C-alpha cells in the first residue's frame, strides 16, 4: 500500500514558541487515520503544514508524493479540507457558500445537494442565521461533496449533535469504502475509536505513539465479572495475562490484558450464569497516556508507517 501522507521530521516553531517537533508519520492510501491530542498539542499546526498554509521550520510533508508546501495548489486538487474553526461569510446562504466551494474545486454547482439532505441542512438560510452546529454541517457537506482521494479534517464534529455525528461517521465509512484516505484530527475519542484504523497521539508538540485502534484498545486491561453456578476450582483462571482480583464463592472478578480468547475458552467450560466484560474506551487509554501510564499499553501490531517512541 502506497502512502497518501508522509511526514518526516516535521518541525514548526513560531519564533521561540513551540508548534510541533520532529513529527514522523505515514498514512497509507485508503486508511482512516486519527490524529489525537489535547488542545495546544500541535494538531492544527501539523494540519496547516499538510495544507501548505504554514511553512515547516524543518522536515517535510508530502501528500500523494507531492511536497505539501512547494506544490500546494497541485496538492489541493487532490484533497478536501475542513478547518477546525470554519468561518463562513454570513451574507451568503449555505447553498451559495457550497456552490462557491464547489466551483473552486472544479465541481458542479449543487454537488452538495444529496449531502445537505442527509445532514438536514437548509441551503437557503443565510450563514449568519445558522447555529454553530448547522454551520458545522455546511463544513461537513463541503468536505464530502467531491471525489478527492484525500480528506483532511480538523475537529470535524465539533458542535454536531449525536444524530449528525452518526451521519458523519457513516460518511467517513463510505469514504473509506470508496478507497479515499481520511486524516482526522480530533480530541473526540469515541469518534476516533469508531472511525479510524490507526491513531497517532501527539503531546506537547511531539508524536507520542502511533498504533492501530485495535491495538490501542486490545492491549489494554479489561474487567471481567462472572457469576458462576458453582465456585471455580483453584487455578481455573491461571493464565499469564489474567489477574484474579476477587473471588467470593460464585462471584469472580478478573482483569485481563491483551488477548481475551484463552480466558473465554476457560470461562466456556464453566457453569456461567452471568458475565460482564467492561472494555476500556479509548478515553481511558488516552487518559492513561496523559497520566504517564503509557507503559500499561503493550506493543501493538505493526502497521503501515507505524512508529513508536
Amino acid at each position, binding site marked *: 500500500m502506497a502512502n497518501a501522507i508522509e511526514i518526516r521530521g516535521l518541525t514548526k516553531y*513560531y519564533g521561540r514558541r513551540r508548534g510541533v517537533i520532529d513529527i514522523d508519520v505515514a498514512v497509507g492510501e485508503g486508511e482512516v487515520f486519527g490524529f489525537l491530542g489535547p488542545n495546544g498539542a500541535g494538531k492544527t499546526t501539523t494540519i*496547516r503544514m499538510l*495544507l501548505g*498554509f*504554514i*511553512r515547516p521550520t524543518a522536515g517535510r510533508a508530502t501528500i500523494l508524493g507531492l511536497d505539501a508546501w512547494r506544490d*500546494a*495548489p*497541485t496538492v*489541493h*486538487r487532490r*484533497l*478536501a*479540507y475542513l*478547518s477546525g*474553526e*470554519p*468561518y*463562513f*461569510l454570513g*451574507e451568503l446562504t449555505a447553498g451559495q457558500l457550497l*456552490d*462557491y*466551494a464547489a*466551483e*473552486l*474545486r*472544479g465541481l458542479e454547482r449543487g454537488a452538495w445537494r444529496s449531502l445537505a439532505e442527509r445532514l438536514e441542512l437548509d441551503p437557503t438560510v443565510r450563514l449568519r442565521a445558522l447555529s454553530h452546529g448547522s454551520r458545522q454541517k455546511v463544513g461537513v457537506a*463541503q468536505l464530502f461533496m467531491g471525489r478527492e482521494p484525500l480528506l483532511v479534517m480538523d475537529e470535524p464534529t465539533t458542535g454536531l449533535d449525536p444524530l449528525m455525528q452518526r451521519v458523519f461517521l457513516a460518511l467517513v465509512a463510505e469514504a473509506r469504502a470508496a478507497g479515499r484516505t481520511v486524516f482526522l484530527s480530533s480530541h473526540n475519542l469515541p469518534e476516533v475509536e469508531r472511525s479510524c484504523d490507526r491513531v497517532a497521539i501527539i503531546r506537547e508538540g511531539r508524536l507520542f505513539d502511533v498504533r492501530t485502534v485495535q491495538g490501542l484498545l486490545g492491549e489494554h486491561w479489561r474487567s471481567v465479572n462472572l457469576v458462576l453456578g458453582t465456585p471455580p476450582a483453584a487455578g481455573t483462571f491461571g493464565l499469564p495475562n489474567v489477574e484474579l482480583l476477587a473471588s467470593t464463592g460464585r462471584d469472580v472478578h478478573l482483569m485481563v490484558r491483551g488477548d481475551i480468547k484463552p480466558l473465554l475458552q476457560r470461562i466456556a467450560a464453566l457453569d456461567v450464569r452471568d458475565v460482564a466484560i467492561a472494555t476500556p474506551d479509548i478515553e481511558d487509554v488516552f487518559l492513561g497516556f496523559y497520566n504517564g501510564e503509557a507503559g500499561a499499553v503493550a506493543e501493538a501490531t505493526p502497521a503501515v508507517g507505524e512508529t513508536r517512541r
Partner: protein
Amino acid sequence: MIAPALRLELRRSRALVGGLVLVVVGYGGFMAAFYPTLAKNTAALDEYLKILPREFLVAFGMEGSLADPGVFFTTYVGSWLWPIVAAIAAIVLATRVSAADTDRGWIELPLATPLSRTRYLLIAIAVQAIALALLAVAAVAAVVGVGAISGAGFDAGRFFLVTPLAFAFACTIAAVTTLLGVVTMSRGAASGAVAGGLIAMYLLDIVAKIEPSLDALGALSAFRYFRPTPIIDRGEFPFGDLALFSVVAVAAWAASLWAFRRRDLIA
C-alpha cells in the same frame, strides 16, 4: 476557478463601494450645485477669505480664487473628499483578503482548493482597482454632471483628466496597504500605519507650503503629486506624477504577491 473568486470578492465589495459612491456623488454634486453661486459672488468671497489665516487656506487647497474651477475642485474634492474616500476604500479592501480573512479563518476555504495564493491575491488586487476606478469616476462625474445641470460651465474633458491621477493616487494607498497587510497579517496595524502615514504626509505637505525653507520635505508627501488644479485650469496633465504613483503602486502590489506566496498564513 478565478471567476467564482472574483465574483465573490466583487459581491463582498459592493456595499462599501455603493456607500462611498453615494458619499462622493452626494457631496461632490452638492458642491457643484453651489459653484454658480460661488462664481457670482467671487469678489465678496475673496474679501471674506482674506480674513482667514493663510495656513488654513493652504491646508484645504484654497490657493487662489474659489471661482477658479481648478481651485474649487481641489478645495472641495481633491484635498478633502477624495483622499478620505480613497483611503477608506483602499484600507478596507486591501486589508480584507490577507489580514482580516486570515484572522477570521475564511482564507482557509479558498486556499485549500486549487486556487493558488498568487491568483487569490491578484483577484483581490483587481477588485481594489475596479472599486477605486468606479469611485474616481463617480467623484468627477458627480461634479461635472451636477455642474452641467446647475450651469457651472465646467470643462468636462479637463475634469475627467483628473480621474486617472485620482485613481493612481488611490491605488498607491491600496497597494501600500496591501503590502503592509500581507507583511503584518494585522488589519489594525496595517490600517493604522497607512492612516497615520497619510495624515503625516498631509501635514508635511501643508508645512512645506507654508514654510519655504522646508519645501524639500514636501517631496516626501504623496499629496505633493496629487494636484488637480493645473489639469483643470491649464489642461497640463502631470505624466510624471501619474508615473510615480503607478510605479509605487505596481511595486507595492508585486511585493505583496511575492510576500504572500512565501509567508505563513497565520494572523
